[in-house]
C-alpha cells in the first residue's frame, strides 16, 4: 500500500482550546477518505494543518513526502483545495476564473475536460455572484482540480446543497477519483460518508474515535441492532439485558443496539417467554453511520 498522507500524533491549540489532540492516521493513494464528526469537532483544523495553512503545535505530517507548512509552495503544485467558506471574486465570470487559475499552474490545464465533465459550458459567461449554491460548488471544484492534483481536499463539499445536487456532486467526486486523484473530504453528513467514502476517520472533540471502512465500523459494537415490536416489554428491563448498549423506543417499535446480537436475542426471547409477552417483527438490522455516530456521542456524554 502506498500512503500519500501520513499524520502522527497531531495536536493544535487555539489559546486554551485544544482543537486537535494527538490524531494519527494515514491516507492511501486513490481512496476517498472522509473525516467525519459534528460541527466544531476539529475536522477543518485537521484538514488545514495537512494543507499546510495552519502550523501544528506538535506531531508530524507527511504529504507526498513533503512537510506541508514548510514546503507549501511545492505542495500547492500537487494538491487542490476546495475551502468551506472561501469563494472567488463576486464579479468574476466562470470563464475568467478558470483562465486565471489555469495560469497559476505550469503545464497544460485540463480546462476543456472539466468544463464538459461539470457541465459548465452554459455558465461560462455568468458572474460568480449570480450562480446558485450548487453551481458555485461546481466552479470551485473545477478550480481545485484544474491541474489534475495528486490529492484533492474538500471541506464540507455538500454543505447547503439540496439532495439532488448532493448526489450529483458524489458522482463527480467519484469521477475525480477514477481519474487518479486521492480525495480527502470532511463532512458532518453521515449518509455522505457512508455512500462516498472508502474509509472514514471519526473525530469528536479533537480526538480520533474510530478509523475504518464504513461497513467495518458498522459491524463493530453499536453498529448492530435488533428491531421488534412489542406492547408490553418494559424499557428499563431491556436496558439491563446483557450486551445491550442503547435502546430506542418509538410507539411500539424498539431498536436495541447491542455488541453481542446472539446473547442479547437469547435473553430477550427467554425473558418474553417467561413473562408470556408477545414479540412481533423481530429482526436483525444493520445500523447506519448516523446511529453509530450518535452512539459515540452519547457514550461520550455519559462518561
Amino acid at each position, binding site marked *: 500500500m502506498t500512503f500519500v498522507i501520513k499524520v502522527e500524533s497531531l495536536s493544535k491549540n487555539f489559546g486554551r482550546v485544544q482543537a486537535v489532540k494527538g490524531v494519527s492516521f494515514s491516507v492511501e493513494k486513490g481512496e476517498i477518505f472522509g473525516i467525519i464528526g459534528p460541527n466544531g469537532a476539529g475536522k477543518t483544523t485537521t484538514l488545514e494543518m495537512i*494543507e*499546510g*495553512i495552519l502550523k501544528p503545535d506538535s506531531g508530524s505530517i507527511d504529504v507526498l513526502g513533503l512537510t506541508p507548512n514548510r514546503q507549501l*509552495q511545492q505542495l*500547492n*503544485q500537487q*494538491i*487542490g*483545495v476546495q*475551502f468551506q*467558506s*472561501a*469563494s*472567488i*471574486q*463576486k*464579479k*468574476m465570470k466562470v470563464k*475568467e476564473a478558470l*483562465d*486565471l*487559475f489555469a*495560469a*497559476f*499552474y505550469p503545464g497544460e490545464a485540463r480546462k476543456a475536460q472539466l468544463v464538459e465533465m461539470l457541465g459548465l459550458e452554459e455558465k461560462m459567461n455568468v*458572474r460568480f455572484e449570480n450562480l446558485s449554491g450548487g453551481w458555485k460548488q461546481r466552479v*470551485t471544484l473545477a*478550480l481545485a482540480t484544474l491541474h489534475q492534483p495528486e490529492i484533492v*481536499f474538500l471541506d464540507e463539499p455538500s454543505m447547503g446543497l439540496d439532495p439532488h445536487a448532493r448526489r450529483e456532486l458524489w458522482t463527480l467526486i467519484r469521477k475525480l477519483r477514477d481519474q487518479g486523484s486521492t480525495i480527502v473530504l470532511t463532512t458532518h453528513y453521515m449518509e455522505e460518508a457512508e455512500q462516498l467514502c472508502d474509509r472514514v476517520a471519526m473525530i469528536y472533540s479533537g480526538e480520533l474515535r474510530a478509523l475504518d471502512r464504513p461497513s467495518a465500523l458498522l459491524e463493530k459494537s453499536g453498529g448492530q441492532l435488533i428491531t421488534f415490536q412489542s406492547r408490553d416489554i418494559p424499557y428499563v428491563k431491556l436496558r439491563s439485558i446483557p450486551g445491550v448498549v442503547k435502546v430506542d423506543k418509538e410507539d411500539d417499535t424498539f431498536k436495541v443496539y447491542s455488541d453481542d446480537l446472539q446473547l442479547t436475542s437469547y435473553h430477550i426471547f427467554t425473558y418474553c417467554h417467561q413473562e408470556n409477552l408477545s414479540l412481533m417483527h423481530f429482526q436483525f438490522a444493520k445500523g447506519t453511520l448516523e446511529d453509530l455516530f450518535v452512539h459515540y456521542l452519547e457514550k461520550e456524554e455519559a462518561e
Partner: protein
Amino acid sequence: MIVVWKLAQLETKMFFRDRLSVFWTFLFPVVMIWLFGSMFGNNIEGNFSFAALFIPSWIGVNIVTTSFFTLGTVLASYRETGVLRRYQSTPLQPWKILAAHTVQGTVIFLCSALLLLVFGMLMYDLEIPVYAGSTLAALFLSIAAFFPFALLITSLAKNTQSAAAISSLFLNLMIFLSGATFPLEMMPEVLQYTAKILPLYYVIELLRGTWNEAPIFEYGFEVFVLIGISVFSTILAARFFRWSDR
C-alpha cells in the same frame, strides 16, 4: 509575470463592472471640480488660475480614493469573503497578488488623472504641467507612498464595512483639511498645522508645485516626507498583512 498581468487585467475589468466605484473614482471628481468651478472659477486670487490649482489637487485626492477604496477596501473584502484564502492553496506567491493589485490601482488612477486633465483643458483652459517629468515623478512617488499606507490602515479593519468606514473618514478629512479644496490660508491656525500631519498635504504641495512653478528637486522636504511614508508603511503593511480573518 504572466500571472501578475492576467490578474491585474481581470481586476481592472471587474472594477469597471462595479458602477459605484466607477462613479466615485471617475465622475465624482469631475462633478466636484465643476461645482467648485462654478462657485469661484473666476475670482481666484494670486498668480494662478482656478484650474491650475484645483485640478492637480483633485488628481492628488484621486490617489487617496484609489488607494483606500480600489485597493484597501477591496482587499479587505477579499480577506473577509475568503478570496485571499483561496489563493493561499495555489502556487501563486503573495507578492504577485499585491503586485497585480498595485498595477490595477495605478492603471485606474492614471485613467482618472487623464480624465481630469482633459476635462480641465476643455472646460477651464488648463495648461499641461510646466515640468511634466517632475509632475509624473511626483505622481509615482505619491502612489508609492499612498498604496502601502492605505493597505496598512485598512488591514487594521475587522471587516469590509469598517474598512470602508475608515477609508471614508480618511478621504473626507484629507479632502477638506489638506488644502485640496479650500485654501489653507482661509483656515484658522490650528487647522493649518493639522493639515501638515495629513499625508495628502505633501502630495498636493508637490503636484501643484511641479505643475505650475518648479521642478521636483526644489521640493526636497515634500519628497523626503513621502519617501518616509512609503518606506515606513511598506514595512508595516508587509508585517501586518493577513490572508484571512483568523
